């Protein structure tokens, strides 16, 4: 452990024919993404307070929460029951209210709940209050979507700039598929979709791109190295060569995020679960989605473009790759 490495994730020099599974990979991905889109509309996302607006209060009660008592306290003050749920610990309760007709109304509703609790549930303390007005939540939602959209666009432009367009399209199509799955995951788990989740999705996006770039980078290098190898074999070779890195990095990021999901507390664990899911999806999509798309798009085009530099090279023999 101190000098010599103990394990390899996969042995060196693997020759797994990943591209054989290209249709399988695309079909599975298409099914999952379609299912995710369906779930996006039905049952839909559980919008968090950032995007739905309204009031969320985290209440700490003396001993395990007595839900009947809380309901009664709210009912006594004519507060329409919007949802009282337990939150992690048995003595933690989350109370949610929708937006009211005006900003002042939403503020007043929060104050109303507070007085009702003070009266009806002795010993309860309010640990957290979030009040988001309708105008602000609409803005936050728009900004969240804007951040996602612009990030995708910038990734597209960047990869286009550094690679060929086939790589850029392949990466962005894969990323969109990844995002739809992450949204499906949110719809399935009923986790609140809020700004923190947008951050999680963007992080998954960044991570997943990172993964694709590594594989693509190797494809680019091998395109110069092996002038006559069929693209299909070449992509397989590139994936195999980078497999230890792909899995190794995924495992470290996965391991780093795991404690967050387990011990991070209620407010951040959702973020971590989306991350964990995204790492698995992102890693597999690098191999089974991004690479096949590149194969389809680049079959006849990529070869010619890369043959262009007049470096004399004998076929299939490794030569020092000229770097840009």
């Amino acid at each position: 452990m101190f000098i010599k490495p103990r394990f390899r994730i996969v042995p060196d020099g693997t020759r797994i024919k990943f591209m054989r599974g290209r249709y399988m990979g695309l079909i599975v991905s298409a099914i999952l993404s379609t299912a995710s889109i369906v779930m996006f509309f039905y049952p839909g996302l559980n919008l968090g307070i950032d995007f739905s607006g309204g009031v969320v209060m985290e209440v700490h009660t003396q001993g395990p929460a007595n839900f009947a008592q809380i309901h009664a306290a709210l009912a006594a003050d004519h507060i329409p029951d919007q949802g009282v749920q337990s939150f992690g610990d048995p003595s933690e309760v989350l109370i949610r209210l929708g937006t009211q007709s005006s900003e002042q109304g939403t503020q007043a509703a929060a104050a109303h709940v507070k007085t009702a609790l003070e009266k009806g549930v002795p010993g309860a303390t309010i640990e957290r209050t979030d009040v988001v007005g309708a105008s602000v939540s609409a803005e936050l939602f728009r900004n969240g979507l804007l951040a996602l959209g612009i990030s995708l666009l910038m990734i597209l432009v960047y990869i286009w700039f550094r690679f060929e367009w086939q790589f850029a399209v392949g990466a962005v199509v894969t990323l969109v598929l990844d995002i739809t799955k992450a949204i499906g995951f949110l719809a399935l788990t009923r986790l609140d979709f809020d700004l923190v989740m947008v951050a999680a999705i963007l992080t998954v996006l960044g991570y997943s791109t990172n993964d694709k770039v590594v594989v693509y980078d190797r494809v680019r290098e091998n395109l110069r190295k092996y002038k006559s190898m069929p693209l299909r074999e070449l992509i397989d070779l590139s994936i195999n060569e980078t497999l230890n890195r792909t899995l190794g990095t995924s495992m470290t990021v996965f391991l780093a995020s795991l404690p967050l999901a387990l011990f991070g507390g209620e407010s951040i664990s959702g973020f971590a679960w989306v991350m964990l899911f995204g790492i698995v999806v992102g890693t597999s999509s690098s191999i089974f989605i991004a690479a096949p798309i590149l194969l389809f798009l680049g079959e006849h085009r990529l070869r010619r473009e890369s043959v262009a530099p007049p470096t004399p090279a004998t076929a299939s023999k490794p030569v020092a790759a000229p770097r840009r």
Partner: protein
Amino acid sequence: MSRSPARKTMMYFSRMKTTLILGVCLLGVLLGVPNLFSAPAAWMPWRTVHLGLDLRGGSYLLLEVDMKAVVKERLDSLADSIRQSLRGGQIFYQTLEPQADQNRVLLKLRDATKTDAAVAALRPLISPDVTTGQPDMVIASDPSGTITLTLSAPALAARAAGAVDQSIEIIRRRIDQTGVVDPEITRQGESRIVVQLPGIGDPDRIKQLIGKTAHMTFRLVDEAATATANAGGPPPPGDDYLPMQDNAKEKIAVRKRIDVDGADLTDARAGTNPDTGEWVVNFTFNSIGARRFADVSRANVNHRFAIVLDDKVISAPVIREAITGGRGQISGTFNAQSANDLSVLLRAGALPAPLTVVEERSVGPELGAASIRAGAISLVAGFLFVIFFMAFFYGLFGWFANLALVVNLFLMLGIMSMLQATLTLPGMAGILLTLGMAVDANILINERIREEQRLGRPPLAALEHGFSRAYSTIFDSNATAFLAHVMLFVFGSGPVKGFAVTITVGIATSLFTAWMLTRLLVSRWYITTRPKLLPV
């Protein structure tokens, strides 16, 4: 780039370069260390990362300044002066209407031939804007006798900016009186104000203090009309029916004309009336206020004088004698708290427009502490996982990476302390993710070295190739992640912004540690041991 001299220098570090790299690392560690301890002495330059409100507990309030009210006030006062000016010039009109939603005052003359005369009479009423020096109103007229005076766009913007700045100043004065430590009050966008109150888990009192415009006026009571004020029906011209503060159902007829304005107060203090023991607010006028107050009270002995705060009558006592000292007392149904709050509001001055709380986030200190604990546990556990992973899979080269990882952590903390960046709970998640991503660069390098060695290259050449080939991959893969998080910083808000800052800083520092520090370590190790085979 792959010419031979460049390759030779890949694993070669001049003394200067070595010192520089180690110097940066040392500096980073020094700057990062204060975060692990509390400050030993006040005089030491002890900069630490700011903890976000979600971690230290506190309140975040987003306030919206009611710009319509700002515009309306300007238009109302303009309409008032138009009325007086036209009356003086014997010009009669059909309608004179401030239209706040269109930012203009509409005037229709009875006699269209007097349009030019009217425009000439109106021109002196338009004040040049304070900031731009341009007239703030645009006068347009047509031959039918319709004249509009529209607030110009720059004047509107200047007025909005002025209202926000003034509001910030007044909010600051009000909050300072409550003893909240380190409140942060900043403007956001055109018409919003962010108020951050560290340590205040329940901002109700602050919200009450900043939710009041606190415009106080002293106006005479129209006693004849008061008799019918509660019967319903419109007030007589020149009067307002205003409710009493402590009993909204009881209305009093108060003259529209403001005799003395609260802006002329110089001081206000809560106290008790020695005779009754009641809580009261004692106030002092400046010289203008004192003179007006004396004049009005002298002329209206035995009449009632209303003290109006935000269109509610606090009290309407009968004037017993002329009050000439410039001092007065407001009594109503006060308790210690409300008397104190009113005196704070009066001292701080009136807001130029009403404020609405459009977003509130408050976290109690216990929850913040729990979040820190949860974040710290996750951080330590994740860190250990990554360290063991690297050691198991890459042995010695894994330890090089681990050392770089520790330095990276300190560099991140150091830079964030220097920038006075805010660490939030998502930011702590960001640190963890950065740790995972930081070793990615090392994994790329190690895998590449291993590959080159398998191709039959001798150790030094394998190292050279490994580092130089991994470089473009590392750069491309981090650049995209960097771009995504810059976007998040631009469009995110609050804790999410903190997350984006942490990750962007982390990407930058991890590039440095993986690319410079590990390479230096490997190079020193190679020079001292000269191994025949690299243990990757």
